[in-house]
C-alpha cells in the first residue's frame, strides 16, 4: 500500500490536499460564528510571530512620539491649558448632571449602572485583504478578552472581537461586509443600520423617506443588537438623497474612525449579562 502511495506520490498529495481542504471548509461553513480547534492552534502559533514582527515598528513609533514629535510643544501646551480651563467649567456641570441622572434612576426603581471595564490593546497586525477586514491585537483570553466584545477608539466604534486567542485576538472592523451597527442620527434620533455596501461605501439603510437627515449629521450607536453600547460615534453622513421618492432614503456615511491610522484600541470588557451575544 505504502509503495503504491510512494509511486503515485503526486496524485496522493493532490488527493490529500483536496480532501483536507474540503473537510476544513465543510467544518468551517457549519461552525460559522464559532472558533474551530484548527483556528485556535494557528492563531496561537501566528500570534507571537505577528507580535514580534510589530515590535520594531512600535519602537520607531515610540522614538518618534517621545522625541521628534515634541517640537512645537510649548504652543500646544498653551492651547491645551486654555482648553482645560474651559473644560473645567463643563466638567462641573457634567458632574452635576450625572448626580441628577443617578438620583432620577433611583427614583425610577433602580436602573443598574454599567460595570464594564476597559482594556487598552496595541494593534500588532492588520489584514485588510479582499477576504476580510481584520485587526490583530495584543490582548487575548488570558487578559479577559471574549468573542463579540466591542472594540472602541476615542473617535468612535472600531469593531468587535471576532476570535479570541490565548494571547492575541482578531477584531472584525465595522467596515467588513459581515458587520453592521444599529445607529441613530444624533440630531433627530432617526434610526437606521450602518454597514458597508457592495461598492465599499458606508451606507445607512432603513432611514424613512420623510426623515430629517442631512450632510454632516453624526450617527451614534443605538445600543440595539446587544454588542455595542449606546451613544458612541459610528459615522458621519456624507450624502442623503431620495427624500420622499422611495420608501427609504439613500444615505451614505463615512466612519468617524480612520482605520489606517489606528495604533491602539479600547476593548469593553462587557459581562455576560450585558452582552447576550457572547
Amino acid at each position, binding site marked *: 500500500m505504502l509503495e503504491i502511495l510512494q509511486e503515485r506520490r503526486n496524485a496522493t498529495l493532490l488527493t490529500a490536499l483536496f480532501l483536507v481542504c474540503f473537510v476544513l*471548509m465543510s467544518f468551517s*461553513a457549519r461552525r460559522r460564528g464559532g472558533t474551530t480547534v484548527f483556528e485556535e492552534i494557528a492563531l496561537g502559533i501566528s500570534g507571537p510571530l*505577528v507580535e514580534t514582527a510589530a515590535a520594531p515598528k512600535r519602537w520607531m513609533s515610540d522614538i518618534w512620539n517621545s522625541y521628534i514629535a515634541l517640537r512645537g510643544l510649548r504652543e500646544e501646551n498653551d492651547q491645551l491649558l486654555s482648553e482645560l480651563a474651559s473644560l473645567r467649567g463643563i466638567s462641573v456641570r457634567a458632574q452635576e448632571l450625572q448626580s441628577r441622572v443617578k438620583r432620577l434612576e433611583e427614583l425610577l426603581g433602580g436602573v443598574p449602572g454599567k460595570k464594564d471595564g476597559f482594556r487598552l490593546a496595541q494593534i500588532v497586525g492588520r489584514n485588510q485583504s*479582499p477576504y476580510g477586514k481584520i485587526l490583530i491585537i495584543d490582548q487575548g483570553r488570558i487578559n479577559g478578552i471574549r468573542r463579540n466584545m466591542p472594540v472602541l477608539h476615542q473617535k468612535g466604534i472600531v469593531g468587535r472581537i471576532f476570535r479570541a486567542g490565548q494571547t492575541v485576538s482578531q477584531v472584525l472592523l465595522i467596515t467588513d461586509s459581515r458587520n453592521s451597527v444599529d445607529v441613530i442620527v444624533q440630531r433627530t434620533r432617526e434610526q437606521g443600520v450602518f454597514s458597508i455596501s*457592495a461598492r465599499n461605501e458606508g451606507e445607512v439603510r432603513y432611514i424613512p423617506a420623510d426623515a430629517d437627515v442631512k450632510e454632516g449629521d453624526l450617527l451614534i450607536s443605538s445600543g440595539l443588537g446587544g454588542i455595542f453600547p449606546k451613544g458612541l460615534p459610528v459615522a458621519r453622513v456624507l450624502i442623503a438623497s431620495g427624500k420622499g421618492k422611495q420608501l427609504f432614503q439613500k444615505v451614505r456615511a463615512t466612519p468617524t474612525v480612520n482605520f489606517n491610522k489606528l495604533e491602539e484600541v479600547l476593548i469593553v470588557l462587557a459581562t455576560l449579562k450585558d452582552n447576550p451575544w457572547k
Partner: protein
Amino acid sequence: MTVLFYIFAAAGAIVFQTTFTEYFFVWTTARPDAMLLATLYIGVRRGPESGLVTGFFLGLLQDILSGGLLGSNSLSKGLLGYLTGGLVRNIARRNWFFLATLGFLTTLFDVVLWALLSLLFQPELGISTNYWFDSLKTIILNTVLAPFAIHLLSIIEGRIVPSSLGIPYPNRS
C-alpha cells in the same frame, strides 16, 4: 540550510502580510498577496511538492488571519504551489515578463477559485462588488511585484546559501 531559508521566507511573508502591507494600502488602496508570492517563489525554486505544502500552510494561515472560510485559501494556494512547481521546472528561461505573467495568472486563479468556493460553501453571504474591486487591485500589485519579489528572494538565497546556486531542482538539498 536551504530548507531553513525557505521556512524563513514563508515566515517573512506572514509578517509582511500582517504588518507592512498597510503602507501599500495608504498609497494604492490595495494590498499585495504576500502569501501567494512566497508560494510562487518556493514552487519555482523547490518544485511541486514543496510548493503544494507551502501553499497549503500559508493559505491556511491566511484563512485564519482574514477570518474567512477555513480551507479555501489553503486549497487555492496549495494547488497554485503545485502547478507553479510543475510548470516552471520545465521552463529554462525565467525572465521578468514570464514572472509577471505568472503573478497575474496565479492571482487571478486564486481570486476566482476563492469566490467559487465561497459561493459553494457560504451561498447566503454572496460575493460583494467590493471583493472584485479589491481583488483587481491585488492582481495588478502582484503582477508588478512578482518579478521583483522572486528575483530579490533568489538573490538573498544565493547570498545566504551559495551552494544552492545553479543546482536544478530536485537535486538541491
